[in-house]
């Protein structure tokens, strides 16, 4: 019995040590533009707000990203032009990620799995550690999937797909406040020689 327990504990220890993951105490992001569309394919979008030089805002403080006017209607697609390099402070020290130290971590980094495009269709390729400024898409089309990375408005058919993330349509008949959620809980990875960010879970609330 003791032997089985010891083997079990050893297995658990190995499994938990396989990947050092922590959360963040600060996640700063820059948002250049937001658009909304009444169509599930994101066509015919209108700009809600836009800036060429956004100030980095800390998602932990529930910051204002921007605001703008929308006519009455049901909006089936929201899209955001963001800086893919987030400034992240790990909550705890985990492997190569040190608590309290700010890291510039790329979330649009895999040139084989991440692919984005502007709403007009201009392709944006992922480059590790380089600011590529992709778009992220949320809609209620059949192309959405939990495994999608949100970087494309249509599914590109790759193994871990660039495709839109799911959102519930917004029925705009009055002034409303919503949130772009970029959840980095247990996505800060210190298991390799450098601190990196795994794909965060993004959603609209």
């Amino acid at each position: 019995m003791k032997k089985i327990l010891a083997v079990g504990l050893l297995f658990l220890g190995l499994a938990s040590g396989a990947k050092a993951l922590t959360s963040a105490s600060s996640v700063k992001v820059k948002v250049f533009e937001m658009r909304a569309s009444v169509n599930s394919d994101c066509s015919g979008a209108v700009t809600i707000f836009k800036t060429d030089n956004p100030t980095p805002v800390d998602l932990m403080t529930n910051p204002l990203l921007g605001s703008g006017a929308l006519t009455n209607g049901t909006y089936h697609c929201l899209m955001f032009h963001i800086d893919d390099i987030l400034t992240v402070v790990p909550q705890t020290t985990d492997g190569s990620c040190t608590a309290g130290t700010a890291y510039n971590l790329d979330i649009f980094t895999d040139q084989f799995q991440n692919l984005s495009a502007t709403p007009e269709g201009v392709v944006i390729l992922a480059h590790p550690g380089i600011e590529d400024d992709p778009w992220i898409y949320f809609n209620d089309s059949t192309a959405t999937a939990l495994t999608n990375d949100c970087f494309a408005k249509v599914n590109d058919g790759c193994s871990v797909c660039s495709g839109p993330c799911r959102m519930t349509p917004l029925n705009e008949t009055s002034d409303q406040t919503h949130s772009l959620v970029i959840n980095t809980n247990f996505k800060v990875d210190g298991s390799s020689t450098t601190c990196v960010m795994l794909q965060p879970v993004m959603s609209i609330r």
Partner: protein
Amino acid sequence: MKGILRLAQSRWLRVLAPILLACLTACAKKHDPAAANSGGGAAVQRNVITMKGAAQ
């Protein structure tokens, strides 16, 4: 000068001036969106959408 005075006193101008004025007022109203909306046309309602950021 005499010609202008004669024109101002002419019966035709006295008849035409109010019609011309009414016409110009109507045209101006037609090109003013605010006035056009208040005239019973369906105004497009615009809402303010505020977007915040969140970590969870």
